[in-house]
């Protein structure tokens, strides 16, 4: 059910976006200042293979949403701090009916990175670390684990205005994470769709 919801949500968001790739009326190109603070929200869905010693790698569905605050100076994204909520489902079974438990929880992340021009778009490459707490689904067992995280974000070339803030922008991303859990390790890989607005912007003359 959750998987269907995740897939449905993702494609609904994608479908809403796809017409924009054609020719919608007069999109405005996003402009960036030299220094900028941005707040963003995003949702992602993907796969989460888990593995541990002497056990096979098994896939599970996953989704998450996150809110983040970033500070950029020219093309250097000095820091991006995020708070997110994630859900990773039960994995597939191996042929001996072993699987990895699903888990869900919250993550605090810190990343840094660089912004590159790419055709008419901008690409942000971010990497950092995260700390998560989670609960195994349908149990009262909680765990904590560190992760290495990375994010490849494509900034789409249109701007929107929200709550009076100009230069809002849409972002497509590939979030990646490697989670060192108690006995197993999990790789999270997905595709995200997000939106951000600047909180403050300053350009040099």
């Amino acid at each position, binding site marked *: 059910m959750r998987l269907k919801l995740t897939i449905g949500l993702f494609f609904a968001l994608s479908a809403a976006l796809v017409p924009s790739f054609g020719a919608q009326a007069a999109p405005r190109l996003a402009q960036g200042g030299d220094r900028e603070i941005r707040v963003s929200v995003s949702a992602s869905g993907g796969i989460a293979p888990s593995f541990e010693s002497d056990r096979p790698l098994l896939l599970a569905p996953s989704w998450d949403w996150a809110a983040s605050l970033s500070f950029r100076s020219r093309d250097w994204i000095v820091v991006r701090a995020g708070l997110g909520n994630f859900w990773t489902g039960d994995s597939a079974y191996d042929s001996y009916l072993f699987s990895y438990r699903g888990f869900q929880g919250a993550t605090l992340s810190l990343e840094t990175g660089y912004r590159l021009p790419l055709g008419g778009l901008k690409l942000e490459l971010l990497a950092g670390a995260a700390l998560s707490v989670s609960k*195994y689904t349908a149990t009262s067992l909680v765990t904590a684990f560190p992760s290495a995280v990375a994010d490849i974000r494509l900034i789409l070339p249109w701007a929107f205005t929200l709550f009076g803030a100009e230069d809002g922008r849409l972002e497509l991303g590939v979030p990646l994470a490697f989670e060192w859990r108690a006995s197993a390790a999990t790789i999270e890989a997905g595709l995200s769709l997000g939106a951000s607005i600047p909180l403050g912007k300053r350009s040099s003359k």
Partner: protein
Amino acid sequence: MRRLPRNASRLAGAFLTLAAVLLLASANACTANITMPSNRYAVVIGVQDYPGIDTKDWYDLSYTENDANEMASLLASNGWTVAKKLLSAAATQDAIKSAIDDLAVLIGTDSEATALVYYSGHGDVDAVSGTGYLIPYDGISFSDNTMSFDKTKWVTPAAMSLWLGQVGCKNKLLVLDSCYSGSFVEAGGSIDISPQDSNTYTGTKEKDVLATAFANFAGLLAASLDAGGDPSVTAITASGSEELSYDDSSTQNGAFTYYFLESATKGDSDGDGFVTATEALAYAKAKLKANWNMKNSYLGQALLPHISGGAGNLVLFAPGT
């Protein structure tokens, strides 16, 4: 009309293709066809009539043989081979150890096999050390019309861990319906926030999970890094380490075992055709809360099942087979 540069369009297309691939892979992962493996073996133990005058001594139990008989039948109908069933006088400490030794021989080097040990009977705990015990038939002596305990025959978590450690497979389940059985549960890198005695709420309450977890992050992280125990053993217990377990005259089973058995047909919460250890635990726990605990908590007789930590999960029942 303004179009994206060709490179950008290609890139955006690649993103959507990647999304489709990821989601299809993910969906496929959950729907793969699997048949029940044949290398699943169980030892089932029920100790009801301890040594004494008759079958109704005050310390005898009422429905633990029902538990063992029904568990053995259910496992057999779900593709398990019940290698040994030990009831009452047959369930001495030596016999239990011997049955698990035989299981080790039966499984041999088949590391992909699954072994299950089920026990329904008396349990106890050392109030000072907190060590839990299973009390086999010969753990109680009777002579000169007097009952006494023979603690040398009791089974500790360390002994059970040693015996199960000799079984050469990496999938092992230990299901216990006895008092204080929670002391057989390994943390496995987790912290169990369910109270060990749900009548006095020692430990923590099961709410505000993530807030509590973030507040105790350092302790949680330390626990995660110190997994401890044998990760190949998943223990499911009727009660916490400070809690009693009960026979239920209305169902003629152990209060926990009744719902655990019922989970085989009603506990498949994700509808994938399999009832995992976690699903069986969740079903039994929810039913105990709603039925048994609602009626008995005012007597101080509430109980909450527990399960080992660790990332792994095993299928117990396949209702469709």
